């Protein structure tokens, strides 16, 4: 019989609010993303100076993942994230720095973030994960591939847990929805439940 997996915990960062398992843990009147996420970093006591060197997408991913991983002792946690805008927000910053031939100064610190999966590396470094990871780009949030991928990783014993979700940021619009899939948890791991949590959290 096929083993059933569960959603152990979930979080959301959207519209100036951060919630963990449905409960608000941080809220701000700040409408601009960078001051908002900096305020969240300080309030949530994240304590990771490298945070300030990251691009906006990695900052979003780091704060969201930290909510779910900071008290977790298990380290065999695979990462499967997805979004719509890939790294477009940072790609534009990089493009601006190279579009004038007589003012051609690409910033290495910006350029290194011109791939969306870099945020997976930042999460892995912060939480010392040496696990499998993947980043997918979809037109909109899709639970199906995330569920199939997570189930496959757990079934093949490639990971003990899987951190999955949506990590989208572009032009001040941000939406992070992460959840941890494990053997035990509060909800059954299903496409229906994930879609429901995404719609309502």
């Amino acid at each position, binding site marked *: 019989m096929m083993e059933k997996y569960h959603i152990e915990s979930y979080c959301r960062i959207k519209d100036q609010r951060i919630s963990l398992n449905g409960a608000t843990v941080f809220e701000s009147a700040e409408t601009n993303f960078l001051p908002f996420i900096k305020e969240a970093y300080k309030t949530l006591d994240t304590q990771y*100076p490298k945070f*300030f*060197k990251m691009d906006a997408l990695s900052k979003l991913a780091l704060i969201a993942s930290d909510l779910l991983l900071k008290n977790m002792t298990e380290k065999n946690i695979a990462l499967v994230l997805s979004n719509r805008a890939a790294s477009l927000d940072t790609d534009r910053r990089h493009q601006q720095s190279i579009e004038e031939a007589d003012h051609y*100064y*690409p*910033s*290495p*610190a910006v350029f*290194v973030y011109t791939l969306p999966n870099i945020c997976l590396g930042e999460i892995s470094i912060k939480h010392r994960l040496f696990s499998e990871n993947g980043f997918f780009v979809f037109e909109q949030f899709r639970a199906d591939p995330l569920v199939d991928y997570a189930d496959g990783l757990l079934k093949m014993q490639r990971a003990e847990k899987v951190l999955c979700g949506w990590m989208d940021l572009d032009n001040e619009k941000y939406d992070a929805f992460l959840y941890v899939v494990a053997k035990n948890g509060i909800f059954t791991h299903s496409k229906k439940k994930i879609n429901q949590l995404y719609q309502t959290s």
Partner: protein
Amino acid sequence: MTDLKLELKEKIIEQLNLEDVSVDDIGDSDPLFGEGLGLDSIDALELIVMLDKDYGIKLADPKEGRQIFESVETMATYITQQKGA
């Protein structure tokens, strides 16, 4: 030279996003890498770009950076020498 060192400290803090570091926290001869400010390889590349963009100095051999970026003192000395050359 003192003004240049202060300017370099301000630029390092701003361009390398050293959020919790102030000018007073950086001694003139404090190591910028390793146990000092803890800068990394990407920061080193940013410093090379900064030399070019703000002081018009192109580092022909990036290996030179090891000595030039040892501290604010060595950076200021190098910039002063290059400007006077």
